[in-house]
């Protein structure tokens, strides 16, 4: 899976959870929770969506690492590349 595919998936997942969010104006390095007004339940929904569709389980202790679009994409990419 390419970085672009993952990025497109994460964006779509965020749009499903928070369709009020303006992703085009989002700084990909900024905090998703902060910039898009996501609360912890929204964030959990994103984690579940990534797990369900891409098979990447993200433990609670890693949530800080996926709190930006870039961070999230990089995390998923690394997880998919790692030997199972």
């Amino acid at each position: 899976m390419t970085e672009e595919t993952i990025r497109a998936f994460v964006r779509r997942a965020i749009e499903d959870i928070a369709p009020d969010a303006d992703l085009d104006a989002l700084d990909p390095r900024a905090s998703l929770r902060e910039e898009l007004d996501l609360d912890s339940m929204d964030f959990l929904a994103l984690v579940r969506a990534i797990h369900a569709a891409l098979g990447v389980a993200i433990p609670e202790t890693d949530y800080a690492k996926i709190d930006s679009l870039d961070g999230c994409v990089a995390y998923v990419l690394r997880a998919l590349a790692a030997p199972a």
Partner: protein
Amino acid sequence: MTEHDVLAEAGLDGLPGGGLNIAYEALDRHATDRVALRWLAKAGGREDVTYAELRRRSARFANAMASLGLSPGDAVFVLSGRVPELYVTALGALRAQLVFCPLFAAFGPEPIRVRLAEGRGRVLVTTQRQYERKVAALRSSLPDLAHVILIDGEAEGCLGWSALVGAASDAHTIAPTDPETPALLHFTSGTTGAPKGALHVHGAVVHHHQSARHALDLRPGDTYWCTADPGWVTGTSYGIIAPLTVGVTMIVDEAEMDVERWYTILEEERVEVWYTSPTAIRVLIRAGEALARRRDLSRLRFAASVGEPLDPESVVWGERALGRPFHDNWWQTETGGIMIANVPGAPIKPGSMGKPLPGVEAAIVEERGGALVEVTAPGVEGELALRPGWPSMMRAYLNAPERYAKCFRDGWYLSGDRAKRDADGYFWFVGRADDIIKSAGHLIGPFEVESALVEHAAVAEAAAIGKPDAVAGEIVKAFVVLHQGVERSAALDRDLMAHARRRLGPAVAPREIAIVEELPKTRSGKVLRRLLRARELGLPEGDTSTLLTSKGDEP
């Protein structure tokens, strides 16, 4: 006993000139160099604010309010994350006999507008970001809102915190305050109608203080962490007032919950007493016991939980993972403070809310022959009721005397919660007597959600229910009926969700919206939310007793 004796027995001082003021009990009477508030910034970094310094800052705030022409009884609202200025606003407003009303920072514009209008907010303390996103467009519809003070940044039509508050004098003596003077306004949700503003008085501090000592084991000098946001009543009664009156060091974390961050705070700040919520505990449990065991939590002396019934498994998990069981307790916005608790030193019954605190008379009541009677037989379900008269009882629902009067009957305050009492006098939560949704420990009124949805051009009718959720207890799910001729589409689904979130904010907006052909109704046309909920859960539709008992603690 004189009033002074009563206060002395309660561990309070009273104002030197007579009366009782929360800010005096919280700050002035012990304005020492002890750290009152240890603020942990989201981005890292910290600030320690001593009791003496917090008194000075609150005095500046009180003087600033006077310079704006505010007088006792005027309402000061705050809409911000957990930053020191929020605490200064609360205490400064209280010392000036203004009414303090906190708003949850994740509210959208509509909940903010309704509360500011209902509470006739004169001053709003907020941040530039919150203001520009949510408040600026509301200004013209809020004629009572004379001043907006920005903690950071600037915006047209707003005052700056540092120029106004920072520059004010820190000389301020609290004027004589009658204990019945309004002090705190907390909005809570009803099944129908707008949110209700429960008004509390300065005299409530007697119960805040005593209950913190009895139910939370708070002692002077403790390091204490209440994780609740002051936007909800727990975060004010036990996240600002009670701990300061006891003289503890309060930990205030600006950031949202993060498991590693929380364990680091518990360990490195050497937290001794911890007050948190079932939702937070469930998140910790999911993250695994090993994370807790890696930490040195030996300083933790007492752990408590409130917001919704704590399941037995969570109580026991606390004992195993943290070395301390969670002590569940029960109270409401209307009660102002803890009423029923598993207290230190008494055996915990996991799953139970505990027993009434000293001075609190609680009972299970039911209607018999048109009157309320107390059910004394153990294990029998009824409505949880309290004998009115405790100090932190609400004194009014703002602008709604009939709704207030309806809470009291035949000498009881009716909580709206169904419960039972066992033979040992412990109370057990059964369910809500109404359709109010409880998500992450916060009450959400279905009416508020439905009103926002029907404002959408495509929506004819809407109903909101609580759907069981493994983490939040319940999430809000909405059912909508579209206007005739409106086509369903994925774009419409998104637009409905976007509309709800923009109006209500993530804390109140539904997490799921289902489009349906029609809503089940009574013959008089009232929507049967209970039936919707039964269908959602796959329960038999006719069996309402099953509905009641299934509320509350879902796995």
